[in-house]
C-alpha cells in the first residue's frame, strides 16, 4: 500500500484549502504532481487510485486527467528525464542535432530509457524558452543554450550525483 507521509498529507490539505469548499477536485492536478514526485516519478494505477481516494473522486476522474496531460508519466522513467524541445523556433537553432547527439551519447532513441535506469530521453513540444534555444527540461528546471559540450557536462553531472547518492 502506498501512502503519503504525514508531512505530504499536510501539504495536500493546504492544496485543497486553496479552492472553495466542495471544490477539492480542483486539487487534482497539483496532487498528481506531488504523487508523481513521491512515488517513483510516474503514476501507476495504484498511485492514481490512492489519489482518487484522497480527494474523494472516482478513479475514472483521475485516469482521464492523468492520460490527458503530457507531464504525467504513465510508465516508469529514468532517474533523469531529458525532455528536449523540438518545435519550430528550437529547430532554427539546431535542436535536431542536439536530440541526435543526446541519443548517440546515451545509446537510446527518444521515448527510451537507458538499461541502467538512469536516463530517459523524450522530445517535447514548445516549452516557452524559444529565445534560449536549443533547450530541454530536466526535473523542475530548464537547461538552455545547449551545445554538445554542455550536453556532455550535464550527463557527467548526472552520473556523478547518481554515484554519490547510491
Amino acid at each position, binding site marked *: 500500500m502506498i501512502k503519503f507521509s504525514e508531512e505530504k498529507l499536510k501539504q495536500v490539505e493546504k492544496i485543497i484549502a486553496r479552492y472553495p469548499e466542495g471544490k477539492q477536485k480542483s486539487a487534482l*492536478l497539483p496532487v498528481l504532481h506531488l504523487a508523481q514526485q513521491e512515488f517513483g516519478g510516474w503514476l501507476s494505477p495504484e498511485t492514481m487510485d490512492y489519489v482518487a481516494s484522497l480527494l474523494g473522486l472516482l478513479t475514472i476522474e483521475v485516469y*482521464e486527467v492523468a492520460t490527458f*496531460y503530457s507531464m504525467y508519466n504513465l510508465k516508469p522513467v529514468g532517474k533523469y528525464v531529458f525532455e528536449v524541445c523540438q518545435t519550430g523556433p528550437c529547430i532554427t537553432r539546431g535542436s535536431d542535432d542536439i536530440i541526435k547527439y543526446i541519443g548517440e551519447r546515451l545509446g537510446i532513441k527518444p521515448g527510451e530509457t537507458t538499461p541502467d535506469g538512469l536516463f530517459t530521453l523524450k522530445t517535447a513540444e514548445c*516549452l516557452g524558452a*524559444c529565445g534560449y534555444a536549443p533547450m530541454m527540461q530536466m526535473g*523542475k528546471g530548464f537547461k538552455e543554450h545547449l551545445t554538445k559540450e554542455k550536453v556532455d557536462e550535464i550527463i557527467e553531472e548526472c552520473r556523478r550525483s547518481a554515484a554519490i547518492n547510491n
Partner: protein
Amino acid sequence: MGRKLLLDKVGIVGIRSYDVYRENGGYSSVEKVLKTMSPDDVTNEVKKSGLRGRGGAGFPTGMKWGFLAKPEGVPRYLVCNADESEPGTFKDRYLMEHIPHLLIEGLIVSSYAVGSNRTYIYIRGEFGWIVDILEQAIAEAKNNGWLGKNILGSGFDCEIYVHPGAGAYICGEETALLESLEGKRGNPRIKPPFPAVKGLYGCPTVVNNVETLSTVVPIINMGGDEYAKYGTGKSTGTKLISACGNINKPGVYEIEMNISVEEFIYNDEYCGGIANGKRLKACVPGGSSVPVLPANLLLKTAKGETRMMTYESLSDGGFLTGSMLGSGGFIVYDEDQCIVRNTYSFSRFYRHESCGQCSPCREGTFWMEKILWNLEHGKGKMKDIDLLWSVQGNIEGNTICPLGDAAAWPVAAAIRHFRDEFEWHVTHPEEAQRRNYGLAGYAEPLKAGV
C-alpha cells in the same frame, strides 16, 4: 531608447524581492485604488488606457471587465493566464521571473476592480521554478498586508493562489483553462455562455494574460489618459515582444508600439540584425498561430507603407498579405531555413496539442502533419499541396475553440507565400534532403541596419 513601463525596473539589483520592489514605488497602485477609487473607477481608467489583451486576441481589457455579470451573492473570479505555450512566446515567463511583484500588484488591483476575493494564477506546469518565485512573492505581499482580509482597512479581502497545469497548450484557451482549474481534462467549452457570465465553478469570471494584468499597474499609476499617449492609434502603450530564431540578440524586449518592424529586427537596441551575416527570409511576428510573412511583405505592407509593430499595421492586408501581432512571439527565419520543415513542425505541434473533441481539428491536424512529413521527406506529390490547402480550409472555423484556426493559419500562409518551395520539394525530392531552398525570389535584398 524607447520608453518602458513594465521592464523599466528590471535592471535594479534585488527587484525580485519585496523590500527592493517596495522601495522603488511598488504597491503604490494598490494604495491608490483602495484609498481613493471605486472598482468602477479602476475599470474606467483601464477603458481610457485603450489596453488590449496581451494574450493574443487583443480584446479591449476594460470592455471585458465591463461585461462581467454581477449577480447578488455569487462570487466572482479573476484568473490570470500564465499558461504561455504558444511557440515563439516566452514573455510572461520573463516578467514573472524578473519582477514577480509587478504581477502580484496588478492582480490585487484587478481583483479589486472585478470583485474577486479568490484569484488564481494558472501557470503551465513546466515552469515549476516560477511557481516557487510567485509563491514567495505572494507570501511576502501577504506578510506586508497587501493580501488577506480587509486590505489597508478598505474592507476588501483577497487571496492569490498559484495553480500549476501539467503540460497542455490547449489550457491556454480560456475555457479549457477553467476546466483544467476545476481538475478536469482541458476540453474547451462551447461559448456562449462566456466566462464573464459562467466561468470558474459556474460563476462570473475574468481571464486575462500575465502581461495584461501587469500593465494595469502603470495605467493606475499614471492614469488611463496618460497611458493612451504611448504607442499609436488603437495600439496604445508598450508591448513585450519575445524575439527568437536567427537573430543576433534573442530575448524579451519591451517596445513602445510606434517603431517599425525593420527597426525592431535590425536595431541593436532590439534583435540586432540577422545572425551570422545571413539575410532575412521570413518571419512569424506573433506566435506560431499567425501567418508567416516573407521578408518583403514583412517590412512593407502590400500598399508599400512601412510595416509597424502595432496591432493594426501587422494585420494590414488581412491574411492575404498581412499577419497579426498575436502574443508577441516574434520568430525570425534566415535564408537557410526551410519553410516546409517549419510548417511541418508547427503542424506536429498542433496535432500533439489538439484536445480531440472536434473531428475537424483532431483528424485535420493529424492529416496535415502526415502530408507535410511526406513533403518534407521527399515523398510528396503535387496534389498533396492542394490536399493540404483543402484540409486546412476545412478545419478553419469548424471547431469549438480557435485551436483549429491556429493550426490552419500557419499552413495556409506558408502555401500562400511559399508555394514554390513546396513544389520544389516535390520536383527535387532528393536535393531537398541535402540542401535548403534558400531565399529564391521571396525577399528583396535587404540592407543590414537601419
